C-alpha cells in the first residue's frame, strides 16, 4: 500500500513542486496520475524513493515512512523510471542478475531470468546482448522485468509508456494488469489519457503540485476523461 | 557562422565555471612556481656571494641569472665555482642547500608548468570537443542548421582554444606584472625579450597540444574513450618520447662512464706526483714540481677535450630524437632561450677551460713567489636571443609540423565523422 499524507515539497528556490498531497493506493489497484509537465508527478515518485526529502508531510510504503526508514521502505517498492537507463556494457540478463541480487533475490538462476524476460516480451536473442544496443521499448521491458524479479508489493512507474509504439505500450499495460492481479499496488504517472482510462482503477489529475481530481473507473465510464483533463488545464490558462 | 560557433564554446566555458576554475588553478600554480623558484634564486644568489672571488682568487664562477626563476634547467650545475689550482680544477658549491628534500619532488617552475601541467589542461579541454557534442546530440543540430563541417571544425577549435588559453594567459600576465612587487624579481631589457619569447613559444606549444586533443575528439565517438586516449597521448608526448629519446641517444652516442674518467684523472695526478717526488729524490733540481703540475694540466685538458666531445655528440643526438615530441622540442628551445640548457652548460665549461688556460701561468707564478697575484675577472659568454632563435629553427619547426598534422587529421576525421 502507498500512502501520501500531506506530502509537500518546496525547493530551495521557492518553487512549490508538491502541495499537501493526500493519497492512498491500495493493493490490487492501478492508480494513474495525469498532469502537465512540471505538475509534480515525478516529484511524487522521487519522494517515495528518497531521491529527495519532503518539506512537510510524509510518504509511506506499507506503513513504513520513507524519510525515516528509507532502506526498509525501498525494500517494499520497485521503481521503473521514465526512459530506463541500464549498464550498457552488460547484457540484459547481467543487468537483471545484478539488480535481482541487490534486491536480495540471490537464489535465481539463468533460466529464471530468461523466464521473466520472456514474460515481459523481450526477444530471445536480446537476452545475452549488451544493453547499449537496445531500443527504448526493449529497455522499458527490461525495466519492468527488474521490477518483477524484485517481487516487491508496490510498483511505481514514471511515464513508462512514453515513446513506445502502440503495440509495445499495450503489451506493457497488459503486464501491469497481471501484476495487479497478483495483488500488487501499481502507481504510475503518465500522459497517456487513453490507456489510463482503459486500465486504471483510479485516475488522478495533478495541477501545479495539487491533486485536483480523482475519479474511479466507474465514474470515468460516464465522463469524457479527455474533456475533463483539458477543462482542468484550461482553467489554469484562463486564470 | 564560425564566430557564432566559437562564441558558444566560450560562453559555455564561462558559464560552467571551467574558465574561472582554470584561471584560479593557473594563478595558484604559476604563483607557487614563482615563489619556490625565487626563494631558490635567492639561495643561489647568497651562495654566489659567498663563493664569489675577489681579484686575488683564481676562481671562475657565474652568477645566477634571474631568468632561471622561470626555468630551473641546469642552473645548479652552472652555479658551481671552478677554482684553478696548480694541480687541476677544484669544484665548489656543488651542494647548494642543506635540506636534501629540495630535489625530491618535481619543481613547478614555469617551464614544467607549461610543458607538463598546462599541456594536460590543453588535452583535457580539447578531448571532447567533437565527441562530447555528438553525445549531447547538439552536433547533429549544428550540421543540420547549415554549418559546413569545416566551419564547425574551425569555430569549435577557435572557441575552445580561446576558452582554455585565455585564463592561462591572464594568470601569466598578472604574475609577470606582480613578479617585481611581490617577489622582487628584477628583469633587465634583454631578459624581458627572452621571457616574452619563451611565453610565445609556450603558447604555440599549448596550442599544438590542444590541436592534438581536438583531433582525438574527432577520432572517437564516446567522450569516455576519448579521455583516456587523450591521456595516453599526453603521457607519450610529455614523458615517454623525451625519456626514450635520451635513452636511445645513449645507446647511439656512447659516453665513457664517469667512474672511468675520474679514475683516469686520478691516475694522471698520482703518476705525475710520484714522478715528481722520485725525480726530486734522484737529485734533480729546478722547477720539478711545476713541470709535473703543468703536465697534469695538459693531460687533464686532453681528458676534458674527449669528454666534451662525447657529451656534445650525446647532447646533439638526444636533441634530435627528443624533438620528435612537441614537449621535447619545447623544452630544448625554451631552456636555450632562458639560458639554462645543456648547450649553455657546455658553453660555460668551455669558458672555464679557456679561463684556466689564460690564468694558469699566473697561478704558477703566485705559487712560486708565495705572494698574491691579481687575476683577471672571469666572464661567461652568452648566446644572443637572435642566435638562440636561429639555432632553434628545428625545434620550432618540429612543434609546428605536429600541430599542422593534428589539424589535418581533425579536418579529415570530421569530414568522415558519424554525427548521428
Amino acid at each position, binding site marked *: 500500500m502507498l500512502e501520501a499524507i500531506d506530502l509537500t515539497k518546496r525547493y530551495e528556490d521557492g518553487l512549490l513542486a508538491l502541495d499537501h498531497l493526500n493519497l492512498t493506493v491500495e493493493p490490487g489497484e492501478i492508480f494513474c496520475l495525469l498532469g502537465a509537465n512540471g505538475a509534480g508527478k515525478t516529484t511524487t515518485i522521487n519522494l517515495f524513493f528518497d531521491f529527495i526529502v519532503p518539506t512537510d508531510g510524509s510518504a509511506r510504503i506499507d506503513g513504513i515512512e520513507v524519510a525515516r526508514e528509507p532502506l526498509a521502505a525501498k525494500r517494499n517498492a520497485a*521503481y521503473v523510471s521514465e526512459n530506463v537507463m541500464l549498464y550498457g556494457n552488460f547484457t540484459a540478463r547481467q543487468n537483471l542478475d545484478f539488480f535481482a541480487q541487490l534486491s536480495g533475490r540471490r537464489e535465481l538462476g539463468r533460466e529464471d531470468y530468461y523466464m521473466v524476460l520472456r514474460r515481459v516480451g523481450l526477444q530471445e536473442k536480446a537476452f545475452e546482448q549488451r544493453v547499449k544496443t537496445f531500443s527504448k521499448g526493449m529497455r522499458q521491458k527490461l525495466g519492468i522485468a527488474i521490477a518483477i524479479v524484485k517481487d516487491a508489493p508496490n510498483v511505481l512507474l514514471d511515464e513508462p509508456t512514453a515513446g513506445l509504439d502502440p503495440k509495445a505500450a499495450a503489451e506493457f499495460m497488459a503486464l501491469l494488469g497481471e501484476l495487479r492481479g497478483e495483488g500488487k499496488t501499481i502507481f504510475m504517472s503518465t500522459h497517456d489519457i487513453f490507456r489510463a482510462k482503459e486500465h486504471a482503477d483510479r485516475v488522478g489529475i495533478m495541477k501545479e503540485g495539487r491533486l485536483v481530481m480523482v475519479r474511479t473507473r466507474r465514474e470515468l465510464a460516464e465522463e469524457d476523461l479527455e474533456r475533463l483533463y483539458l477543462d482542468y488545464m484550461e482553467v489554469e490558462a484562463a486564470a | 557562422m564560425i564566430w557564432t560557433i566559437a562564441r558558444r564554446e566560450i560562453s559555455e566555458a564561462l558559464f560552467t565555471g571551467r574558465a574561472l576554475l582554470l584561471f584560479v588553478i593557473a594563478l595558484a600554480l604559476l604563483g607557487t612556481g614563482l615563489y619556490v623558484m625565487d626563494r631558490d634564486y635567492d639561495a643561489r644568489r647568497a651562495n654566489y656571494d659567498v663563493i664569489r672571488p675577489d681579484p686575488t682568487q683564481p676562481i671562475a664562477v657565474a652568477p645566477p641569472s634571474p631568468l632561471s626563476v622561470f626555468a630551473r634547467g641546469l642552473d645548479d650545475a652552472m652555479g658551481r665555482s671552478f677554482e684553478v689550482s696548480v694541480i687541476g680544477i677544484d669544484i665548489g658549491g*656543488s651542494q647548494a642547500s642543506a*635540506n636534501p628534500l629540495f630535489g625530491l619532488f618535481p619543481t613547478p617552475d614555469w617551464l614544467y608548468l607549461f610543458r607538463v601541467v598546462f599541456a594536460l589542461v590543453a588535452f583535457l579541454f580539447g578531448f571532447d570537443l567533437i565527441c562530447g557534442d555528438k553525445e549531447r546530440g547538439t552536433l547533429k543540430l549544428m550540421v543540420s542548421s547549415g554549418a559546413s563541417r569545416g566551419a564547425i571544425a574551425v569555430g569549435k577549435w577557435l572557441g575552445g582554444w580561446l576558452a582554455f588559453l585565455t585564463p592561462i594567459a591572464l594568470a601569466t600576465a598578472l604574475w609577470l606584472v606582480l613578479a617585481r612587487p611581490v617577489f622582487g624579481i628584477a628583469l633587465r631589457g634583454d631578459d624581458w625579450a627572452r621571457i616574452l619569447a619563451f611565453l610565445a613559444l609556450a603558447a604555440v606549444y599549448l596550442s599544438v597540444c590542444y590541436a592534438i586533443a581536438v583531433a582525438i575528439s574527432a577520432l572517437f565517438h564516446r567522450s569516455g574513450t576519448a579521455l583516456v586516449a587523450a*591521456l595516453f597521448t599526453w603521457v607519450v608526448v610529455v614523458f615517454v618520447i623525451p625519456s626514450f629519446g635520451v635513452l636511445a641517444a645513449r645507446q647511439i652516442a656512447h659516453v665513457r662512464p664517469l667512474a672511468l674518467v675520474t679514475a683516469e684523472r686520478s691516475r694522471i695526478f*698520482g703518476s705525475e706526483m710520484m714522478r715528481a717526488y722520485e725525480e726530486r729524490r734522484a737529485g734533480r733540481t729546478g722547477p720539478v714540481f711545476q713541470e709535473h703540475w703543468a703536465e697534469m694540466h695538459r693531460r687533464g685538458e686532453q681528458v676534458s677535450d674527449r669528454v666534451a666531445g662525447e657529451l656534445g655528440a650525446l647532447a646533439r643526438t638526444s636533441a634530435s630524437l627528443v624533438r620528435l615530441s612537441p614537449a621535447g622540442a619545447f623544452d630544448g628551445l625554451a631552456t636555450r632561450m632562458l639560458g639554462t640548457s645543456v648547450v649553455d652548460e657546455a658553453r660555460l665549461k668551455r669558458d672555464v677551460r679557456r679561463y684556466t688556460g689564460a690564468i694558469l701561468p699566473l697561478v704558477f707564478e703566485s705559487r712560486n713567489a708565495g705572494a698574491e697575484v691579481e687575476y683577471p675577472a672571469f666572464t661567461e659568454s652568452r648566446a644572443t636571443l637572435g642566435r638562440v632563435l636561429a639555432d632553434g629553427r628545428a625545434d620550432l619547426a618540429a612543434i609546428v609540423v605536429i600541430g599542422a598534422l593534428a589539424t589535418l587529421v581533425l579536418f579529415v576525421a570530421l569530414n568522415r565523422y558519424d554525427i548521428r
Partner: protein
Amino acid sequence: MNKQAAVSWRLVAWKECRELLVSGRFLVVAVIVFGLVATTVTVLTRSYARDLADYGSAVADRQESLRQHGHLNRLGAWYLPDRPNPMTAVVRGLHQNANLESLDNDPLAVAYPLPDLAVVVGVLFSLLALLFAHDAMSGEREDGTLRLLVAHDISRVSIVVGKAVGRALALLVPLAAGMLTGALVIAGSPNLEWSASEWGAATVLAAAAAIYVTAFVCLGVMISAWTRTARTSLVVSLAAWAVFILIVPALSPYIAGELRPTDSLTQLQRRVRVMGDTERDELGNRLSREYLAPIRERHPEIEGFLALDEQARRTALTTDPRLAAVLDTLRAASDSAWRTANRIQSEAIDALWADFEIEREAQIRATRRLSSVSPYPAWVFAALDLTGTGLRAEQRRELQAEAFAQTTFMPWRRALTDSLIAIDPTVDWWNTHIDLSSVPTFSYRPESLAGRVVAAAPQIGLLLLFAFAFLAVGVAGFNGYDVR
C-alpha cells in the same frame, strides 16, 4: 551493518569492476599502467647493470693505480664510489647521479633524469587513478543508472564504498601485472641479484603502491560525490592533482626553510675547508715548532743532521747511532704536534657540523611534517626507506663509514706507517710510492628488512589514512547527492 548491506557493497564493487574491465577506457589505462611499470623496471635494471659494470671497472682501475702510483699522502684522491644499490632497479632515490662534484658530470642526466617507480607511480598513476574514478557518481548520474541503484535497499555508504573498491580493483589488476613483469625482469637479469630481504622490501613496496593508487581512486570517488557533471569532476580532479602532487610537496621545503632556517651550507663548507686546511697547517706548524724547540735546544747537534738530504742522512745515521734516538724523539714530538693540531681542528669542525646538523634535522623534520598533507610525499618517503635509497640509508652509511675509519682504516694506516718507519726511518714515506692495493675498503651493510619496514610503516599508515579520509568525505558528499 546488516547482512544485506554487507552484501550490497560487494555487489556494487563487483559490478563496478566488471563494468570497467570490459570498457575501452580500461584497456587504454591498463596499457599505460602496465607499459610504464614494465618499461621503467627494464630500463632501470639495465642502468643498474651498467652502473655495476662501471663500478667493477672503477675498482679494478683503482687497484691498478694504487699498486703503481700509490702513496699515503694522497690516498684520498683514489676515492671509491659506493657499490650500486641493487634496489635502484626500481627506485633511484635521493641522488640522481648528478655528480656535480665532478668536472666531467653529464648534464643530460640532470636535465632528463631516469624515471623510477617512485615518480611514475607517484606522479602519473595518481593522475590516472583520479581520472579513472572521477566520474564514479557524476558519470552514472549522467548515464541515468544512478537512480535505479539508489531506488534499491542499499545504503549510500555501500554505494560509495562499493564503487571505490570496484574501481580500485580494476586499476590494481594492470598494476599488479606490471609489477609481476618487473619482478620477472629483475629475476631474469644476469647482473642483478636480489637477496631475500630485497625481495621482501620490493613486495612491501608493491603493496604501498597499491595503497597509494587506491587512495587516489578514493579521492576521485570523493570528488565525484560532490560534483554533478563529469566535466566538472574532471577539472576539479585536475586541480586536486595539481595541489597534491605539485603545490604541497614543492612548497613544503621552502616553508620549512622559513620556519626552521639553517646557516648557509656553502659558507659552512668554505669555513670547514679553511679550518681543515690552512688553519690546521698553521696550527700544526706552530705546535710542531713549540714541541720540537725544547728537544732541539737539548740536542743542538741535530741541527746539522736536519740540514742534510736523504742520502746524507742515511750515511750520518750509520756513523752516529745516538742520532737515531734523537730523531725518534723528534719524530714522536712532531707526530704528537700534528695529531694535536688535527684533533683540535677536528673537534672544532665537528662542533660546527653538529650545530648545523641540529638545525638541518629540524628543517627536514618540519619539511616532512608539512608535506604529510599530501599522499605523494608519504609514498616517496616510504619508497626511499624501503629501498634503502633515502636519507635514512645515507645517515646509516655515514655512521658506518665513520666507524670503519676509526676501527679499521686508521689502525691499518698506523700499522703500515709504523712498519715502514721501522724499516727505514729516514724516508718520507708519506710521499713515497708504496703498493697500496691492499688498503681495506669500506662496504656498506644495508639495513635489515624489518628495520626498513618499520621505518616505512608510518608513511604507509598515512596512505591508508588518506584513503579512509577521502572515502569518508565522499560518503558525506553522497548523502546529500541529487541522483536525478
